[in-house]
Each structure stands twice: as C-alpha cells, then as structure tokens.
C-alpha cells in the first residue's frame, strides 16, 4: 500500500494490555501546572526502565477543571493497577505536591477500579491534614510551607493499551525528523493518548533479546541503518538512512488506532519513505494493530 510516495508496510504494531490513570493537575498559572506535569512525566518513557510510562495528554482551560484554575492532564500507564498506584504515589508526592500552587484531581472518576493516592500522601501532613468530602469524593488538604496541597483520596484506573507504535523511515535524519514531527503533532490531537518518549519520538528502538545474559532488551539491529550490511537481518531499504519510532499508549483501542492513523497520514504528507511498525512476531502482545487496516477503516473523530 502507498500513500503518495510513502510505502505503508503490510505489518502490525504489537501492543500490550496495561492499566492507566488520568491525573488533572491545576495551579495558579498554566506555567506552574505544566511545570508539575513535566516533572511528573519525567523519566517515564518505557515501562522496562522506568516502571511506568507517562506523558502529558493536553492542557485544560480553567473553566473545565475541578477548581477553575488552568490545568494539565497527565496519563500514567503501568502493567497492573497496583503498579499504577505505586507510581502515582511516588510521582504525585515528589513532583506535584512539591510544586507551588498545585492541586491534583482524579481524571477517571468512572473507572472500574481505584487506587489510593491522596489517602497515602496525607500522612505527610503529620496529623495536621484535613479531609473534605464533596459529592462522594474525598480530598485531602495537606499543609505545606506555601499554603495547602489539595489531592484527591483515590484515583480511577482502567485497562488500557500500551506499546502501539509506528516506525518512520527516511533518507536522512532531517527528512525523517520532519515526517516524524508532523506525525507526532497529528497524533497528539487525539484525546486519551500519550507519546511517552522525548518529543514523542524514540531513536533507540529495542528488540526483546540480547547476546548479554544480564540484558533482556537491546538495540533493534534490524532497523539500524549502520548495520544494514552487517546484521543477520535488516528491514532498512538501501535508500533509507534513518529510522525513528513513535510509541503510543492509549486509554483504549479506539483512540490508539485513531492516533496511529492520523500519524501515518501526517508522516506520508511529509513524504516519509516508508512507514512500518514494531512487533515481536505476534507472540507477546495481546493486540495486533495492522497498519493497512487502520487506513481502510473509517474512524470517528476523537
């Protein structure tokens, strides 16, 4: 299949079942809300090395947040609900509570399960914390040197999709970056997804094996242009000089697929040489997202 000059490889992205939470961070200014969100989503690119994957979903105008202040929505993914809870306690405690003027709210109030976050962080208040219940939701007011940190007792967690991906191949770094950046911008227009790597892009894609016993993931040599003439298997065409990957985590398959579809279209408009996807032969992930199917489906707007 081709879109203009771009070849869309007949393959699939192999994605995994994860669990996700949505955190609404509000603050006195958009800048402080974003500062907390950026801190909270730092070092959260890959579940393999970071224990979770997290990213900024979008900015929220003041009139749409629980306390009428500017906000940022953050999505955090882990392999199970318990993992999401642990990471939330760590990251909300270290990155949001510490940030001036912030408050922190559950962004998935209708989720099937909850994990306790504010209910654990409250102990930082050393007995001076105050509980408030409004419309069945409990909040904790934790006294801090700047005033009070408000955090919701529990956060909803729901099954989600992790590890959706696109591989974008181009003749050189500038051209490939151009196509990838366009794809990232288009993919981020879908609510309910994050692209957890820096700028939404990862250059060091990995395979799930290594010649070293102590390492269970190593460079994806089949997609390294410098190894095209050397590695036992290569997927890099002779005219390609750069491969970049976009990893996507979504709250459900619909938003994940729609985001990938928009990414493919945007990269193709920038004349990416080839668009492919990473998989493990279909043996590991619960979900196979076929690129050709994405382009043939009529999807609703998100």
């Amino acid at each position, binding site marked *: 299949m081709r879109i203009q000059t771009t070849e869309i490889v007949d393959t699939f992205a192999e994605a995994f079942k994860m669990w996700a939470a949505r955190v609404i961070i509000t603050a006195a200014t958009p800048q402080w809300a974003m500062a907390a969100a950026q801190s909270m989503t730092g070092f959260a690119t890959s579940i393999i090395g970071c224990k979770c994957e997290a990213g900024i979903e979008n900015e929220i105008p003041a009139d749409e947040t629980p306390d009428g202040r500017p906000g940022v929505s953050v999505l955090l993914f882990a392999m199970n609900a318990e993992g999401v809870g642990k990471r939330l306690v760590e990251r909300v405690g270290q990155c949001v509570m510490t940030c001036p003027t912030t408050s922190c709210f559950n962004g998935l109030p209708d989720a099937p399960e909850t994990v306790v976050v504010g209910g654990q962080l409250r102990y930082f208040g050393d007995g001076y914390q105050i509980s*408030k219940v409004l419309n069945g939701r409990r909040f904790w007011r934790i006294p801090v040197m700047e005033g009070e940190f408000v955090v919701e007792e529990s956060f909803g967690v729901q099954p989600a999709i992790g590890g959706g991906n696109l591989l974008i191949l181009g003749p050189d770094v500038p051209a490939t970056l151009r196509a990838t950046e366009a794809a990232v911008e288009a993919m981020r227009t879908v609510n309910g997804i994050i692209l957890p790597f820096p700028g939404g892009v990862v250059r060091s894609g990995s395979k799930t094996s290594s010649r070293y016993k102590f390492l269970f993931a190593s460079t994806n040599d089949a997609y390294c242009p410098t190894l095209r003439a050397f590695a036992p298997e290569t997927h890099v065409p002779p005219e390609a000089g750069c491969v970049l990957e976009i990893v996507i985590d979504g709250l459900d398959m619909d938003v994940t697929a729609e985001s990938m579809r928009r990414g493919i279209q945007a990269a193709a408009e920038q004349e990416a040489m080839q668009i492919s996807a990473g998989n493990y032969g279909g043996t590991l992930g619960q979900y196979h997202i076929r690129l050709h199917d994405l382009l043939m489906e009529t999807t609703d707007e998100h």
Partner: protein
Amino acid sequence: MSIKLNLHTTPSVPLEAEVITPQRFASLSNEDIAALPVQHGNELAKLGDFFTVSGSANGEIELEGDLRLVKMIGQGMSSGRIVIAGDVGMHVGAIMSGGEIVVEGNATDWAGAEMLGGQILIRGNAGHGLGCGYRGSRIGMRGGQIFVQGNAGSETGGAMRGGLIAIGGNSGDFTGVNMRAGTIIALGEIGWRSGASMLRGTIVTMQPARILPTFGYACTYQPNFLRFYLLHLRAMGLPVSDEQVNGYYQRYSGDSIELNRGEILVFAG
C-alpha cells in the same frame, strides 16, 4: 407522573406527616396513601383527612398548600424526590439518607436535622437547627448537602460531623456549635459565637465576623479546596462571585477549648 398532595384542610395544630416519603408511597394506591396515619395534635388521623391524593407513584412527590404546620415531611427518606411548592413546617428532611427535597418557599426549624445523606434545597429561608443534632444528641448532620438560598437561623450545623451546608444569606448565632467535621459556607454573615466548642470542620463566611477569643488567627491565604466548593455552590444556584472564588481568606483555628482542629475562614477580598 408524580404523586400530588394538595392540602384541602389546613391543620389547626401541627400535623406530623413523616409518612410522606417516596419509599413509603412506592407500590401503594392513592387510596392506600390517603389512608396512611398522621398525627394531628393529640389525635390520630389519616393523610386523606388533609390532603387530596392524585397522580401515580414514580418516586416523586409534589405538595401544594399552606404546609407551615405540616411537620416531618421527608423525614427518614432514602430515595426519590419531594417538591414542596411553598413554605413547609419543622423537621423537613430530618434523618434523611438519600434522595432530594426541594422547598420552593421557607422551611422552619430542624430542616435536615441529623441528616445522613441526600440533598435539600430551600429557596427561601431556613429556621433554627438546620442540619443540627437534636437535643441530647452528640452528632448532628453526618452527610449529604443542604442549600439555602436565603438566611438560616441559629445553631446551623450544630454538632455536624459531615456533609455540606451552604447558605446564600446569613447564618445565625452558634453556627457550627460543637461541630465535629463537615463544611458550612455562609455567603452572608455568621452570628455570634459561631464555631463554639467545634472540634474539627470548616465554617466559611463572606462577611466580617466576630470570632471567639478561643480561636487563633493563623494567616490570610487562598484555600484551594474552597475553590471547588464555591464553584459547586454556584452550580447549585447560589450567588458566588469570582472574587470569592479567587479571593483571600483569613484563617482562624479553634476552638482551643477543644481540639483546636476546626477552622473559620473569613473572606478578606
């Protein structure tokens, strides 16, 4: 279609009508509803002796007429909705655990007393003992929400341990007396000795207040939690201004003769 109760005979003395709840009416015919017992002074009477019953049960009850001497409407209700077209007598919604009561006029004393859950909206004024514990009770309102668009009398939220009482106007003396937890917000003034003996909980006023000497001034700050409470009040139709949402509040801690864990927040602009 809801059940409609029209008062055809105004009681000469207080009428105790705690049978008027959606759960009590459920599955009853209109004749059965009219036969429910009510206490008229020292005499046992039937609901139909005072009300004309029409409509059919769907979880909602509408009442019309001069109900100022009709007491205990919605007392103990757990679900459904009651709409009272005018004024209503004492104990409306007392000990209710769920559902909603709307009073289009005024409510007299003990509205929502010892309430456990649900919601009461009073578009006029409320009397004394709003959401309060009864005499001898250690605990008043434990949950739910009461909204009063007018003023409220004395001992609003007395011994309260949970929930929210919001008053569009003034709240009387001893607001939040013996309060254990929960939140009382008065967009007007709070009366003298508010918060007396409170252990925990929050009392908010938008007007200057006489604070008991057993409360200590802490600071003037922007309490972030109050923002979503005030936005909630605004959504419920109370006149909350942007200045109040975004404003600064003086925080007083007390009552120091008790735990000293309660607070009175006074709007400072």
